[in-house]
């Protein structure tokens, strides 16, 4: 299938940090380097991704950008939700909507939100 003029790019929130210690070359053009915050444009079939550390209830972004979505490893979710149900230090998501990787939804956040609204 040829990608026509109608095919919009995907916009992802991007954040590059020193956490990525190896293989930067594979993400060239897909994340902004050296701690920059911003937006990157990638082909419309790519996923956005994000990785955060959860330290004392606070999310600290490690890496955000476009993910190399190969045919054999696509993403399905339009929103950024953690896949892991365990109490992990690192949270991550891949999602397929513009700027979907700004923040991540996770269990403890959801619990806190529902407590607040009740």
């Amino acid at each position, binding site marked *: 299938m040829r990608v026509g003029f109608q095919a919009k790019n995907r916009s992802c929130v991007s954040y590059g940090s020193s*956490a*990525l*210690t*190896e*293989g*930067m070359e*594979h*993400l060239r053009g897909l994340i902004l380097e050296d701690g920059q915050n911003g937006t990157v444009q990638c082909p419309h079939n790519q996923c956005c*991704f994000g*990785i955060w550390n959860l330290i004392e209830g606070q999310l600290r972004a*490690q*890496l955000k950008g476009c*993910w*190399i979505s*190969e*045919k*054999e*490893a696509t*993403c399905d979710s339009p929103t950024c939700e953690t*896949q*892991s149900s365990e109490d992990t*230090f*690192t949270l*991550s998501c*891949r999602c397929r909507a513009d700027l979907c990787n700004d923040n991540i939804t996770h269990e403890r956040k959801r619990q806190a939100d529902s407590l607040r609204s009740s």
Partner: protein
Amino acid sequence: ANRSTQQQENYCRLRELRIDLVSMGYIIFPEWYHANNCVGPCRSPLSTRIPDYYSHTLFLLRMHEQGFPLQRAPCCVPVKYSQSVILTFTNDQGLKVKRYPDMVAEACGCR
């Protein structure tokens, strides 16, 4: 024609297989991928059923058919792979992106 189709269906060929990577512990992305797998019996005649033809396999099958016991009979395996990029933790909780070869089974053969 129906019987022939059924036999081909049951021959060594590529099948869908999704592998979960998050459960490996050190892999962050992708969470899962279509790794696929080669499944099905290997038997004569080879040439008409399979594009990848190995003289070694042909002779193994002939031996087997002639009643000689083989220590290992021909097996349906990937003969072509494609690569994939994986994002993992490093030993010191850093992040690492690497391209791994032989991640996805792309074609099958009897070896």
